[in-house]
């Protein structure tokens, strides 16, 4: 079964700092990869997704992620964070064929200090 690891449990940054959140998955086949964001008290919203093609994916609010197949990674980046980026971020994976379950990592809490 696939699994997802997010190594950073809680990240604290100042506004305008650069962000990189790690995500690794364990599955050797074709996968679909996602980053979801959960603002305080809200439901999960999709930030960006990768299905195929260009491994550098751009999402909403200036976020991007790079799929590196050889490293089984899909790290999330943002060059300059804002206070409004304070949220919890979840990486998720689903297999491309057969098993349609969406498996999540444990999440990374991001706190931005004004």
């Amino acid at each position, binding site marked *: 079964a696939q699994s997802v690891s997010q190594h950073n449990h809680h990240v604290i940054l100042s506004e305008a700092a650069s962000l990189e959140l790690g995500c690794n998955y364990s599955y050797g086949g074709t996968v679909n990869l996602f980053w979801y964001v959960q603002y305080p008290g809200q*439901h*999960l919203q*999709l930030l960006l997704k990768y*299905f*195929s093609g260009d491994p550098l994916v751009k999402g909403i609010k200036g976020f991007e992620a790079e799929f590196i197949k050889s490293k089984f990674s899909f790290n999330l980046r943002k060059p300059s964070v804002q206070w409004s980026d304070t949220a919890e971020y979840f990486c998720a994976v689903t297999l491309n064929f057969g098993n*349609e379950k*969406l498996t999540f*990592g444990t*999440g990374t809490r991001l706190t931005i200090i004004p």
Partner: protein
Amino acid sequence: DAGITQSPRYKITETGRQVTLMCHQTWSHSYMFWYRQDLGHGLRLIYYSAAADITDKGEVPDGYVVSRSKTENFPLTLESATRSQTSVYFCASRPGTANTEAFFGQGTRLTVV
């Protein structure tokens, strides 16, 4: 309005009682999912459904029952609630075609006392 809605948003129940959480989507998505969110565990899949009358266990199914008699509804029942089932429950849906993302409901915060 179109979308995915969960009810109730908040629920307090006593240990041993049966509780049903409702999930309704208006997109006719094939797949529906139930997750629970707990600190330190992220989101864990309880049950999912690929279509009406087709359900399957996820990672943490014990103590839960689901049904899917209609495509748009996917209720989750706790047959005899326990304190360990205190959690935030999220329902999600996605189309049956490949390369699509899941959409989440607002969540139900359940407290078992």
